[in-house]
């Protein structure tokens, strides 16, 4: 039986079908989960996808984190279930306190939508378990608030605990320490600003994201 990945949909989410397509294309089964449901329907992993949940009003992710689905995701994560937040999903996970830090506006003042190169810094996370440390992947970004920040103590902790899983090669947005993705202490919750689900098909110009989605499927199996 294939791994079932739940993809949480909030009002304003717009990358859910990209995530489902990527999962399905790699042998898993993507299943949409409505934000109002306090039930993950027995999925094996969760993706909180990109978009503008609740219009990004107040702050990106600030309202989405109070959704019944996020309470279920929080319990799922606490039980060790693999959870990945992509772009807006990363913002939701930081607001929910499942990941440290916050995403501030890009330092270059612009909304950025273009391919970036990210380097795998740790293969010890739910999103990178099948990837090689040092591998450079071409994966697009699409955000205005993707400039990762945290206090000095948190940054030191992330470094010491090998929790910076992806770094930009050529920092596009001002993120502290070139951080593109981080994981939690238990390494089952990962957030990243780049969109691996948009780099899983030759038609989209890169298949480098596939190794990350495949890692999630492996972590869930």
């Amino acid at each position, binding site marked *: 039986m294939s791994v079932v990945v739940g993809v949480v949909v909030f009002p304003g989410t717009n990358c859910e079908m990209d995530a489902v397509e990527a999962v399905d294309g790699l042998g898993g089964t993507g299943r949409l989960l409505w934000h109002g449901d306090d039930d993950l329907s027995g999925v094996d992993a969760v993706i909180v996808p990109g978009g503008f949940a609740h219009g990004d009003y*107040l*702050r990106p992710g600030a309202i989405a984190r109070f959704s019944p689905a996020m309470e279920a995701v929080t319990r799922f994560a606490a039980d060790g279930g693999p959870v990945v937040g992509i772009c807006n999903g990363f913002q939701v996970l930081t607001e929910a306190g499942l990941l440290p830090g916050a995403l*501030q*506006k*890009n330092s270059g003042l612009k909304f950025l939508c273009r391919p970036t190169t990210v380097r795998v810094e740790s293969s010890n996370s739910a999103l990178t378990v099948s990837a090689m440390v040092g591998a450079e992947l071409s994966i697009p970004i699409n955000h205005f608030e993707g400039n990762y*920040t945290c206090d000095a103590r948190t940054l030191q902790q992330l470094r010491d605990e090998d929790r910076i899983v992806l770094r930009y090669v050529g920092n596009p947005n001002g993120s502290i320490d070139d951080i593109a993705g981080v994981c939690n202490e238990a390494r089952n919750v990962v957030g990243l600003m780049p969109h691996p689900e948009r780099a899983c098909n030759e038609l989209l110009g890169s298949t480098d994201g596939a190794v990350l989605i495949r890692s999630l499927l492996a972590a869930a199996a």
Partner: protein
Amino acid sequence: MQFSVLVDIRLRGGISDPAGATIERVLPVLGYEGIADVTVGKTIRFTIDAVDAEAAQAAAAELTESFLTNPVIEDADLTIETVSPGAGT
């Protein structure tokens, strides 16, 4: 009693503020000189029922910290005023 609450939210020092930077950059072009430290924040206003000003302050502060701001990147000041005294006071 009912109190009005004004939450004045601003980005913490060092946090990227593209709106503030853009406004500041255009000021000399428009002929405004000597203006610096432009920052753009947001204000949120609401009313709250509470037994007294202290309780209103505590409730508004809790709301501000847990939901209205992200303490990693934002600071906030609260201004609380009495709107209407409760019955019998």
